[in-house]
């Protein structure tokens, strides 16, 4: 059955939808966790510590966290590989364009490929910035609250994160609704509800994620 799914354009699209929804679920949790920054350094750092002790004593220190990391890595890889392979098929299927051109699809629809690439690059930067701290000057291991302030103390830190969460909003707006169609949940009667849910999710994620750099920039969080 795995072969049938991977070899079919419809099946590969299913892989994209499921891996996308897995990442989406994670991002909702991640965004809500980020909001703890508004309650001060102790609460935010305590929350970061709790993520590592999650599941103890049944699990060892950081096991749950590594489980999530492995799952997410699988989702990102499956999503990106399917996106690449499906996009190649799509471009090959339409070799010559019309002389009389028309742009009709929405901005969110047209930017899925480049928006996805921006998100992929951002994921790498984000890990180097706040997980490994490689590119974060002034970072101290074990002090996530202070490291977030360090990131948003630079103009490029703010710019990179704001562009990325905007790209995320557009990607989710088309992606969530698309995933519903791919998984066969869409129908004429549910269409409006699904589109509204996609817009609400996209807005909530973008506003929620953007609130942190904006709060640091305006001095609300310091």
């Amino acid at each position: 059955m795995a072969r049938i799914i991977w070899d079919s354009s419809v099946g590969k699209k299913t892989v994209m939808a499921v891996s996308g929804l897995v990442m989406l679920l994670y991002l909702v949790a991640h965004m809500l966790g980020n909001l703890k920054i508004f309650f001060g350094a102790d609460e935010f750092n305590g929350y970061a510590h709790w993520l590592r002790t999650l599941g103890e004593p049944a699990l060892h220190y950081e096991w749950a966290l590594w489980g999530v990391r492995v799952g997410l890595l699988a989702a990102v890889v499956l999503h990106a590989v399917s996106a690449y392979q499906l996009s190649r098929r799509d471009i090959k299927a339409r070799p010559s364009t019309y002389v009389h051109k028309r742009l009709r699809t929405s901005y969110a629809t047209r930017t899925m490929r480049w928006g996805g690439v921006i998100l992929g690059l951002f994921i790498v930067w984000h890990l180097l910035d706040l997980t490994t701290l490689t590119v974060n000057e002034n970072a101290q291991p074990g002090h996530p609250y202070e490291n977030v302030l360090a990131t948003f103390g630079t103009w490029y830190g703010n710019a990179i994160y704001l562009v990325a969460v905007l790209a995320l909003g557009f990607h989710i707006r088309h992606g969530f609704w698309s995933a519903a169609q791919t998984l066969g949940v869409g129908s004429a009667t549910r269409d409006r509800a699904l589109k509204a849910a996609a817009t609400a999710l996209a807005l909530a994620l973008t506003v929620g994620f953007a609130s942190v750099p904006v709060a640091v920039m305006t001095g609300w969080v310091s």
Partner: protein
Amino acid sequence: MRLTLRVWRQRHTDADGTMSTYEVDGISPDMSFLEMLDTLNEDLILRGEDPVAFDHDCREGICGACSLVINGDAHGPERTTTCQLHMRSFKDGDTIDIEPWRAAAFPVVKDLVVDRSSFDRIIQAGGYISVPTGSAPEAHATPVPKPDADFAFEHAECIGCGACVAACPNGSAMLFTSAKVNHLNVLPQGAPERETRVLDMVGQMDAEGFGGCTLAGECATACPKGIPLPSIAAMNREWLRATRHSRRG
């Protein structure tokens, strides 16, 4: 009406094509778009030039043969087939761009004529029901619930014109294939081949080099028969069901 036409001319499949410009005069607003092209071709023949090749058959919107991209729209500005489009949709003095369907799976044969036999092969892969020959069965022997009959009829309206493929930025045949799969899969007569039908037709669609669906929605906007976009979700549902129920391992 006097019009300027920019028409795609291509001598054969492997030749390079270009847009050629022609003037036509004396066009009545009551003419159909194809009659307007007939007028152009009469002029071209009288001048000893090669007439423009284009597909047509019934000229009443039911066969699916006509196929032109007019000013960037498959079947032109109205939601109907090119043969049912009338010149009153244009203004005197307009310049009109006329191109063939463009997709890897629809190679140009000549000028505006494309080869759509890839659609035929998708149908051959599963767009049928197997019935024993002999006398017709009693119609009431197989009840079909009204909503299912409506759903089947809605999808049976597809005339296989290929406008959905022409309009799709990925040259995808998902709307056509979903119309055919949904039409038969919802009916009791289609039930014995329900799983193989959707798996085989989607497989053939991929093998023909059509693109995948990115839910851009251009197909449903172009479709002259109003096959709706959610038909694709309905086919995806059938496909996922078939991968779970397939007896072919």
